């Protein structure tokens, strides 16, 4: 099994006709994801050519798309200033899994999205995230399918390309993945490390978990506590940003050291104290995982 998505996932794409939305819809369809509909206000009634003979119906609103196509997940590629509204629209329409790829969403928007989505019982992943992939089953977002392979490892990360680097090493070493989840690099996001760890812990196929953190906030420390208290499966960590200076935003809005808890040193120490080995280099993740399978 995989977590959050699987081969049965029926996906809606919000912003399907945009530059990113159209490109990645084709990528997802090519990977085998069941894309059931798209939303672009003003283009309702048209269809989107997703390649491989797939013609996907477009709707003006998520509400209409839900009535017609019964999606179980949605992925959002709309521009940053419209992304919060898109997330709330998806939650209001009752879609249980909302994956927001969009980068650059104002953080004050997210303070409102968070309770809105929560009250409606939906799970939000992102924003500013690469989405997730269950290798060989389905992909929702932008993680390149070619670097992944099916297998027993669960992976959760705050970053995009660093995830690809690690996944690439794992796949080449024969360590395939049940699911890779990018939770995003923003200060306020919908799904935290602990949510993913809980999902991997209860997924029978997942045998070990890789956690890729970075500077800023204390999500890794929360994860460390969770692993120590509640997890039986082995977890291996990597933390980016050991050389980052304090007070500067390292690309991701959330990757900024303010206070001791935000430093890589503190996070590495917290993980190690919880019994989680932390790789010095991305490639070292492979050996650490292998030693624990």
């Amino acid at each position: 099994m995989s977590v959050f998505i699987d081969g049965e996932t029926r996906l809606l794409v919000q912003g399907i006709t945009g530059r990113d939305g159209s490109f990645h819809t084709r990528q997802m369809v090519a990977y085998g994801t069941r894309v059931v509909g798209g939303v672009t206000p003003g283009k309702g009634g048209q269809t989107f050519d997703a390649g491989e003979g797939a013609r996907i119906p477009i709707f003006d609103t998520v509400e209409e798309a839900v009535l017609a196509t019964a999606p179980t997940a949605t992925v959002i590629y709309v521009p940053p200033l419209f992304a919060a509204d898109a997330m709330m629209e998806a939650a209001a329409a009752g879609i249980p899994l909302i994956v927001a790829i969009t980068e650059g969403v104002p953080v004050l928007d997210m303070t409102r999205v968070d309770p809105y989505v929560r009250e409606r019982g939906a799970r939000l992943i992102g924003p500013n995230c690469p989405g997730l992939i269950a290798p060989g089953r389905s992909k929702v977002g932008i993680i390149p399918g070619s670097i992944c392979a099916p297998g027993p490892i669960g992976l959760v990360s705050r970053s995009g390309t660093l995830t690809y680097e690690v996944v690439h090493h794992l796949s080449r070493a024969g360590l395939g993945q049940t699911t890779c989840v990018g939770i995003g690099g923003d200060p306020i996001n919908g799904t935290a490390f602990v949510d993913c760890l809980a999902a991997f812990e209860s997924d029978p196929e997942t045998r070990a978990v890789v956690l890729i953190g970075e500077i800023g906030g204390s999500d890794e420390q929360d994860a460390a506590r969770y692993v120590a208290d509640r997890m039986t499966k082995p977890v291996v960590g990597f933390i980016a940003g050991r050389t980052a200076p304090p007070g500067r935003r390292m690309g991701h809005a959330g990757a900024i050291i303010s206070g001791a808890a935000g430093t890589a040193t503190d996070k590495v120490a917290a993980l190690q104290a919880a019994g989680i080995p932390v790789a010095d280099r991305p490639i070292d993740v492979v050996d650490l995982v292998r030693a624990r399978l």
Partner: protein
Amino acid sequence: MNIHEYQAKEILRRFGIPVAPGDVARTAVEAEGIAARYGGAVVVKAQVHAGGRGKAGGVTLARTPAEARAAAERILGMTIKGLPVGAVLVARAADIASEAYVGIIVDRASKRAVVMVSPAGGIDIEEVAATTPDRIRRLPVDPRYGFLPFEALQLGTFLYRDAGQARAAARILRQLYDAFLDSGASLAEINPLVTTPAGELLAVDAKMVIDDNELERRPAVAALRDASAEAPSEVAAREANLTFIRLEGNVGCVVNGAGLAMATMDLVKYYGGEPANFLDIGGSSNPDKVIAAIRIISSDPKVRVILFNIFGGITRTDDVANGIVTAVRHAPLRVPLVIRLTGTNEEAAVRILENAGLSAMTDMDAAVQRAVALVAPAGSAR
């Protein structure tokens, strides 16, 4: 985005907060004129995007217009933490009976804006938090209901025993919250919020940081940007849509993705080198970005090697290769180039580079090791 103290104070004034009178000067003569207009003592304060300007000598009390002129003369010539001082705020000096701290930040743990107050003002709030945490009160604002009057009064009552002052503080806090929201801020603080001997409250220093993601929908706020107060290389990077932070080392880094960029810097350090910068070209593979990245990094005289680390996902590595080739063709590099490319269109990328006489690697560790070796004294590489 940082804005200057004088700009933050203008915003607070617009929201009704009592702010110590002051005006900005870009020359010593202007500063003298402002001081003469106010009459009494003034404080001349460097307007610069750096903390610790007081310790650096950027804040001076001046009792006469002549003193103000001399202070401005001196401060306008200063460079604080690498940033030149282009303007000073000349503010009427306030009589101070007591100092409080009030501020609002976006807090990631509670996922809310948090209002923080402390009767121990005038000093760094993180120091207060560390030493006397019971002298700080924090209130996470429920974004669904906003900052409620009774909540503001609870905080005002925590700050002041006097009912009138507590009410005045509550009013200021709600005005500060309105200013915070309206500006799309991620931080807004008044430190100190001064009580005068007459019992009036007055904002004597103010700081606001704007969420970059808010600027597109707030052109008036975006217009407050003072590019002259930023490092030129960071201005150039922003204009090219690159995320760039200059550091002290000599290994220039060009990476796609923030996490991978940090991991690359860490690996440079791991192998005994020192990264010269953080630079993320983002997900797009626009060759112009690559060209701008090379130009910006090359302009740092400390840089002795440029390391590319590109993991092609959305980014097409052939586009990056084309950007590198174009850049090198237009302006030959004064430093060696180490290129690591893997992922989408990797084979095409390698061909493009080789045709231009450049070589590419596919392994991150090997590339970092080579870059470090190129700058290390012989025998010192790990």
